């Protein structure tokens, strides 16, 4: 008997079901658990209170990224609370024999940057972390999602999670992206269309020729922001691009095991004839460079467009949301966004801090200067990224332009580590959230691609990056 056609999600899900008892959620096995300092201490304390250990420290890896400084180590100190959190993680990892990639470790970096670059992130795996941007790892065809601290404790204790099966949402992007249009613009366009809660209860699979043409780092940028559409996870089917990127990574299989793995990974792609619960389609050629104007990632627009007005929508709740967002952002409805004053530019975060992101920013900054009065912060996603960028001379490009070149970490994306913007300031940021105060109390965030962020840095204004690209 032949099995019915299945989606990528269904294949990974079915393989990981440990138990599925009546009137209980499904028990799902977790292949890889990533841990960081902010969402884990209470979970470890819970284990201790119950007298439990960590079931699979060999499937658990820890790093420090959220509350860590990005200044050079001899200057670096956030505060006593942050340091206590880091010390707690060190103690917990030592106690339970969990590998820890601490601040001075060669593998140190943002959790969603180092998982892939170490080859821990592999197709077909289930991956969780106490961080909503765990969806990033779905770029490799892994089912990866964020969990809360209680669930971190569950996974530490049992290597399993209680789960209800999500529905599937296909986001299909066909065609070719235009000049100056990047993966970040694609995902901001997707979220602007389906809304910040539009993917709730769903796992997104990104399909279509434009997705297939993206390199791995671009796919990570897309999957990273799946949570900003409310989705549990984002997936891209693994293909030769995926395998080539993973080959030779420290934790990737080698030799015959690699060949067997690739063979199994090829079979993960959604079968011909399998159906999704919902589908939405986009024409890549119609996507322009995007920027957000409001206070959630669904409030995005073409950079060459005009800031929306409350009168442009019918729903009273939507009207109030637009008015509230514009009041916070200090933006006038109906005006072009191009030309808006910018105080700070941030290139970094688990969304856009990899080599391709830094190269994109450098392509604009090379031979130019950061505008007077603008602070530009370039924060690589990992030590490995930092070293590779320095080998390429990108650090010199940034420094000569007048930007700050920092140590890896979450930095200004979360503003709990000393890097933040001041009340009222405008920041064009390559990060993932423009919520009120996300980058510092009273700060105003405009999300955009590394190209658009770099363009804002050199002009001091929101600028269409296409006007600065070499022809």
């Amino acid at each position, binding site marked *: 008997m032949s099995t019915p056609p299945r989606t990528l999600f269904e294949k990974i899900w079915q393989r990981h079901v440990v138990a599925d008892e009546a009137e209980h959620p499904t028990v799902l*096995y977790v292949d890889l658990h990533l841990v960081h300092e902010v969402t884990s*201490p209470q979970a470890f304390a819970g284990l201790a209170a119950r007298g439990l250990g960590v079931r699979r420290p060999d499937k658990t890896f820890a790093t420090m990224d*959220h509350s860590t400084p990005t200044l050079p180590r001899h200057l670096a100190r956030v505060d006593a609370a942050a340091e206590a959190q880091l010390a*707690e993680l060190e103690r917990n990892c030592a106690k339970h024999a969990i590998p820890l990639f601490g601040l001075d470790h060669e593998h140190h970096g943002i959790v969603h940057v180092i998982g892939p670059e170490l080859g821990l992130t592999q197709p077909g795996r289930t991956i969780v972390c106490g961080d909503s941007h765990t969806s990033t790892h779905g770029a490799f065809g892994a089912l990866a999602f964020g969990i809360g601290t209680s669930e971190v404790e569950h996974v530490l204790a049992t290597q399993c999670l209680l789960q209800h099966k999500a529905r599937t949402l296909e986001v299909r992007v066909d065609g070719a992206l235009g000049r100056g249009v990047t993966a970040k613009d694609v995902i901001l366009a997707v979220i602007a269309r389906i809304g910040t809660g539009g993917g*709730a209860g769903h796992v997104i699979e990104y399909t279509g020729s434009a997705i297939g043409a993206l390199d791995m780092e671009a796919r990570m940028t897309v999957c990273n922001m799946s949570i900003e559409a409310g989705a549990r996870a984002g997936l891209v089917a693994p293909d030769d691009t995926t395998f080539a990127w993973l080959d030779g990574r420290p934790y990737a299989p080698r030799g015959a095991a690699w060949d067997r793995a690739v063979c199994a990974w090829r079979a993960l792609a959604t079968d011909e004839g399998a159906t999704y619960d919902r589908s939405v389609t986009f024409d890549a050629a119609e996507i322009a460079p995007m920027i957000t104007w409001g206070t959630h990632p669904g409030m995005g627009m073409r950079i060459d467009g005009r800031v929306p007005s409350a009168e442009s929508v019918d729903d009273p709740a939507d009207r109030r949301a637009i008015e*509230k967002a514009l009041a916070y952002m200090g933006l006038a409805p109906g005006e072009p966004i191009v030309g808006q004053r910018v105080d700070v530019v941030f290139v970094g975060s688990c969304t856009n801090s990899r080599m391709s992101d830094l190269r994109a920013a450098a392509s604009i900054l090379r031979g130019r200067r950061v505008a007077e009065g603008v602070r530009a912060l370039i924060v690589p996603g990992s030590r490995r990224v930092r070293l590779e960028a320095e080998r390429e001379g990108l650090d010199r490009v940034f420094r000569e332009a007048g930007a700050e070149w920092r140590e890896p970490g979450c930095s200004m994306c979360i503003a709990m580590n000393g890097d933040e913007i001041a009340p009222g300031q405008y920041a064009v940021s390559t990060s993932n*959230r423009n919520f009120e105060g996300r980058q510092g109390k009273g700060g105003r965030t405009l999300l955009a691609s590394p190209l658009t962020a770099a363009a804002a840095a050199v002009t001091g204004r929101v600028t269409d990056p296409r006007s600065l690209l070499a022809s």
Partner: protein
Amino acid sequence: MQPFTRLTSRVAVLPVDDVDTDQVIPARFLKITDKVGLGDKLFADWRRAPSGDDPGFVLDRPETRGARVLFVGRNFGCGSSREHAPWALCGWGFAAVVATSFADIFRTNALKNGLLPVALDEVAHAHLRALLDADPRAEVTVDLEACVLRMPDGREASFPIDGFARRCLLAGIDELGYLSSLDKDISRWEAEHG
């Protein structure tokens, strides 16, 4: 965890959609290693005392003092997975949040802390809003045994909740006990899948 069966309380009305967990508890308060002390920081950047014509933020108004139910719009708790959000809500004294929908991770986190997410349909939600606007001191009853919310005018609205989570809340037990009881199944899966 305290069992949750039935709760009668005033309601704090925050009629905002897409409230993200960065608003519920800003990131600068996450540098802790325990779960206590977050109640005072709930909605820290939205807090504002009443003054003149300004009614202030809902949690700062006298009529919501002691309210154990928070009323919000759609997609509550979107964004960050921080479980500090339900810790802060519980720390303030809330035991239930009424919305039209919840973000997935927030709902999961809330249930694991004895904080009941009550998703009403839009008609019931709007009806309750009107009643609370008319009388901000009116009380509602959230009945988890019957899975209904009783409004101040006696009208009842049912709400969905996962059966397993409901049983855990009613008994005041957490979900790890069930997972731990499946040790043999987990070992078998590990043996089969390496």
